[in-house]
């Protein structure tokens, strides 16, 4: 068990080193302590190494308190590394003269429950808040707000003059996401982007995120403890536990051995679990299905086989 885990993380580390060259974001051996210098000091990150390449969707999964939310604050320089390195598109975030404004323009972050950051009375004004700080011309500003609102599924003309307090929870979440998107970041970091939304809105948001990646080449970093979501969206995942990366790789590899994740309080996506249990009962289905569609196909194949 331990040996296989070590092997997996060693393989992960090799893959990291081999591909680290073209990465947009480098995080190397990053440590973080909360309330440093006070009696409440607590280590949140212990030597995290991760890379984000242009155009990919990276999933970060982990139990509550595993350091996920701390880690993403380093990706746009909200936190500056005191121990370890963070390089975003050539900007050394740890240096005091690093171009932090450029880093924050490059990497947009929407934290958990981002609707709390909506403060303007009108939807359009709130989405425009970020880009307005850039001193854009009115035309360009309007175009950006329109693009961002349409991208998250809020029709510009119907929503720009709506009062934010009249919006539904899902619309408010989309407004907040549009506010980050309107900065036109290259990398979008989302902390639990669909938590607390109804299933239909959840699917809608996922679809729109994938569309942004397909159409605009947006790089995504998704933080979640919803394995099904990560499995369906991410190209690569990092599993965090107690502030350290304990597994990384394509979701199919990481989720393939469900008992490897169990010690970290994580369960593989539901469809994977179904297939793994069917296999355990002696039914020959593929064990590495990640989504409902794949699991369905695997079970159908097994049924055809049986006939």
């Amino acid at each position: 068990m331990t040996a296989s885990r070590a092997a997996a993380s060693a393989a992960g580390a090799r893959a990291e080193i081999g591909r680290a060259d073209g990465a947009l974001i480098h995080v190397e051996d990053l440590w973080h302590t909360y309330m440093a210098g006070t009696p409440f000091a607590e280590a949140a990150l212990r030597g995290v190494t991760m890379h984000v390449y242009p155009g990919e969707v990276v999933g970060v999964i982990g139990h509550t308190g595993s350091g996920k939310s701390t880690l993403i604050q380093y990706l746009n320089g909200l936190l500056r590394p005191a121990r370890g390195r963070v390089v975003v598109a050539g900007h050394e975030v740890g240096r005091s003269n690093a171009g932090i404004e450029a880093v924050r323009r490059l990497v947009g972050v929407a934290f958990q429950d981002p609707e709390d950051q909506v403060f303007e009375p009108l939807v359009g004004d709130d989405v425009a808040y970020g880009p307005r700080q850039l001193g854009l011309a009115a035309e360009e500003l309007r175009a950006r707000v329109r693009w961002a609102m349409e991208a998250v599924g809020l029709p510009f003309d119907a929503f720009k003059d709506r009062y934010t307090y009249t919006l539904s929870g899902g619309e408010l979440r989309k407004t907040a996401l549009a506010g980050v998107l309107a900065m036109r970041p290259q990398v979008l970091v989302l902390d639990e982007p669909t938590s607390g939304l109804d299933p239909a809105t959840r699917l809608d948001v996922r679809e729109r995120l994938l569309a942004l990646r397909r159409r605009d080449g947006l790089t995504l970093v998704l933080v979640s403890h919803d394995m099904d979501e990560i499995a369906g969206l991410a190209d690569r995942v990092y599993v965090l536990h107690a502030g350290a990366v304990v597994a990384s790789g394509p979701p199919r590899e990481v989720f393939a051995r469900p008992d490897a994740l169990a010690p970290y309080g994580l369960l593989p996506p539901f469809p994977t679990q179904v297939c793994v249990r069917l296999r355990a009962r002696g039914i020959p289905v593929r064990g590495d299905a990640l989504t409902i569609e794949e699991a369905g196909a695997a079970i159908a194949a097994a049924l055809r086989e049986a006939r």
Partner: protein
Amino acid sequence: MNEFELLRNITIGQYLPVDSYLHRLDPRAKILAAILVIAAVTFTPSLAGNACLLAGGLALVWLGRIPLAYALRGLLPAVPILVFLAVMQLVFFGRNYDPTSPVVFQWRWIVVTGAVLKLVVVSAARFLELLLVTSVFTLSTKTTDLTLGIESLLRPFQRLRVPAHELALVVTIAVRFVPTLALEAERLMKAQASRGARLGGSRWRFISRVRRSLPILVPLVTYALRRGEELIVAMEARAYTGGAGRTAYTVLASRPGDWLAVGAAAVFLAAMLLAPFPA
């Protein structure tokens, strides 16, 4: 380096769970003692007296087994204000404050007299002493103990229609909300900075500073109101109807040793008031 970690510098309203004489002290005795010490700080204008008070404050920190660096950290956010105040006092008081005092320094219209110099030192020392006392007090007192203590101390005044229980509750909630609001402010600052907000800016451009803080203040106030409402609902859902007829989970029982602290504080205050410190 970390421009957003607000809570790190707030020592008032935090509780530090260690075991010390001050932590075990009956909250009623501790409140009374704290009031006496604060009175001593307020009524001592002399340099030597403030030196004694500062020593007393440090002794309290030691007695509460609180790391000194942590107790002093609460001072950091106040440093700009303290410096600003000191400069104002030095520049503008001039001869208006105690004209008989000898002039120490003069440059054009800026006149600094010995009295003003003393005033600057004493006000800074007082601030430090107050901060030490209040920090030690909150760091060594659980909020529940604080409520119980205040309520128990105010109970004799209930006949004068002083709402003892309600006042105690208000104080508790206020203290309890300090770290909560600091955390929320921190979260909002980070969220807004992540979508292009430029916070801070020049300290001297007040209007632009206020305008820039709106994206934090508006959601923060909303959050505070929402939290308040949630609290009301939560309390009512648990059948809270105010203080009358309410029994307590912990009943305060003071030992004679607890009142020693009050005695010591009273003696300290008397000594401060009566000691012939050179003016």
